[in-house]
């Protein structure tokens, strides 16, 4: 407060910790009441599902299954992350899954043709980026609804995969580093390193913001609240790492450590969240999703933003496809047909609005975890195969309805 500008008279500056926290809590309750539920439904669902599956299956909360759950969730998280960019823009890519599949089919063809796997993977990513460019061109330049264009690609790419892989063709992935992504684990000390790095980044960013705000005499979030949030998150991470670092194998061969895919997904989520929340580009994505006309008048190139959204989505889909291939150990001509609807469901459960402009990646990832839990848990209950689809479809419709209702309530308040 030593600098010239006077502090903002926002909600007063209570000094003692309890009052501060109470204030923050009241603000949060007001926000939730106002229809901005954020991650709350996803957390509630997670809690309910845990209790339910734990009651029904003794295997659910075992180390082996929880590690498995992280691996299963990884692919969905990447696809969810991909689609969130588009959903915020009020666009959609039904072909994201098969784009990932097709790019992997190209990858496997190249590898079989003797290309080094790194270069092949790079080409696969380019295939994704180019697909996004074409999709974006049709949607943003020509003006064809995304639903139609991507449905066309959804069908077309399934055909392309059949052509590339042959009828009923399955190609095994022999590349060791790629198989390791989903099937191998970090050494225990590397798991702890991961926690340290994540803490350093979380604390560093938070401190950076606080210092900049204090310098200008702006009020900060109560320090106690930040410490509770960051500390809570880190404690949770530490518990998970400790839990996964114990041998979970039932046979002689030891299985322990955090699955390799976990840090990779964390990096993707961090970059995505950083871009969306802290860069002009990300802000403009939200602006275009919220009010394209206002964005246009503010000088934002709306067409470019939409095309970029498709390019990001398709490129990330290739990584999703890679995870899938790594887990299954092969690429099949039906890869990626179903994942998009699960990913949309995950995003909506995580508080990303289908009406655009609202939601963030972190919460969407939690939504993806919920959907993965449903998948995993139902699998353990040994129900008939169709039940899984019925439940996932139901969750999607339910979450979308909640989204629509909260939006309705918001606009009715005015």
């Amino acid at each position: 407060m030593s600098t010239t500008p006077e502090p903002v008279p926002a909600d007063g500056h209570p000094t003692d910790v309890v009052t501060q926290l109470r204030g923050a809590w009241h603000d949060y309750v007001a926000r939730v009441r106002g229809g901005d539920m954020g991650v709350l439904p996803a957390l509630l669902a997670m809690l309910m599902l845990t209790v339910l599956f734990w009651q029904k299956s003794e295997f659910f909360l075992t180390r082996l299954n929880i590690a498995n759950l992280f691996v299963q969730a990884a692919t969905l998280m990447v696809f969810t992350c991909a689609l969130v960019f588009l959903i915020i823009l009020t666009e959609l890519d039904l072909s994201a899954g098969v784009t990932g599949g097709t790019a992997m089919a190209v990858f496997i063809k190249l590898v079989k043709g003797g290309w080094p796997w790194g270069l092949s993977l790079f080409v696969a990513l380019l295939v994704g980026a180019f697909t996004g460019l074409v999709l974006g061109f049709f949607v943003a330049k020509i003006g064809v609804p995304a639903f139609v264009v991507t449905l066309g690609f959804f069908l077309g790419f399934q055909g392309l995969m059949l052509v590339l892989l042959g009828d009923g063709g399955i190609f095994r992935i022999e590349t060791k580093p790629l198989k390791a992504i989903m099937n191998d684990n970090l050494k225990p000390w590397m798991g702890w390193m991961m926690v340290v790095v994540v803490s350093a980044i979380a604390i560093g960013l938070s401190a950076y913001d606080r210092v900049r705000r204090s310098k200008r005499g702006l009020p900060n979030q109560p320090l106690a609240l930040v410490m509770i949030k960051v500390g809570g998150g880190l404690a949770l991470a530490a518990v998970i790492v400790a839990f996964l670092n114990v041998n979970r194998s039932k046979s002689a061969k030891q299985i322990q450590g955090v699955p390799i895919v976990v840090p990779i997904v964390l990096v993707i989520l961090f970059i995505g969240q950083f871009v969306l929340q802290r860069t002009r580009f990300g802000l403009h994505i939200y602006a275009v999703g919220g009010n394209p006309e206002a964005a246009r008048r503010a000088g934002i190139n709306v067409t470019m933003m939409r095309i970029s959204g498709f390019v990001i989505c398709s490129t990330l889909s290739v990584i999703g496809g890679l995870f899938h291939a790594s887990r299954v150990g092969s690429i099949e001509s039906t890869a990626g047909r179903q994942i998009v609807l699960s990913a949309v469901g995950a995003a909506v459960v995580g508080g990303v609005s289908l009406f655009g402009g609202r939601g963030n990646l972190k919460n969407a990832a939690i939504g993806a975890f919920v959907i993965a839990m449903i998948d995993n848990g139902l699998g353990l209950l040994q129900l008939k195969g169709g039940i899984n689809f019925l439940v996932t479809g139901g969750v999607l419709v339910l979450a979308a309805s909640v989204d629509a209702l909260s939006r309705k309530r918001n606009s009715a308040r005015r």
Partner: protein
Amino acid sequence: MGTEVPLIELSGVTKSFGPVEVLKGIDFRAYAGQVTALVGDNGAGKSTLIKGIAGVQGYDSGTVSFEGNVVHLRSARDAAGIGIEVVYQDLALCENLDIVQNMFLGREETAAGTLDEASMELQATQTLKGLSVRTVKSVRQKVASLSGGQRQTVAIARAVLRNAKLVLLDEPTAALGVAQTEQVLQLVRRLADSGVSVIMISHNLADVFKVCDRISVLYLGHMVADLKTSETTYNDVVGYITGTRSKDDDQ
């Protein structure tokens, strides 16, 4: 006041759409520190006149002078470049973004490649404070949670933040209740008092008489009156707007 140089001066401005002549040689002036009302019935040419000043749609002929120099406004960017900002009736705000984000939309400040939230929040706060806006609880509120009057305030503050010398307001009180209208009118007055020239399109003559220094009346593409509010009456203005009174009646 008569000897003062206008901030913006239009002379002999015309505009046709095919065979339809919408502006038939308009002269119009607005002064710094004053609120100039632009009134007229539907179809009188108000929007067309405003679009020309905003740079959105050029005139066919005539000249526009800004601060004494002839200017050619070919795009909204040109207009913004010399300090002309327009607040359209629909406000062009993103409801999903907060007040700071809306005020800086398209002109965000960055530090080390990332958004400089602290600097922007500070400037937004100071701008609102400079306009004596007290109705906004937090500048980090989403615009979706604001009332109509508050939204209008944000849109006007955005123009101020961009160092506008001339602010065009299109029906700023059209969708507002009594109390909010009052707030916005006070804001408009303060804006002019701070030295900005304000042009306000309005259908509500009560508002016009409350806040405007001058009243320009358009009637079927002609500027039929350029009056000082203090020297005219409600009935006279209605007469000009409806065409039952003309310049000749004054002599």
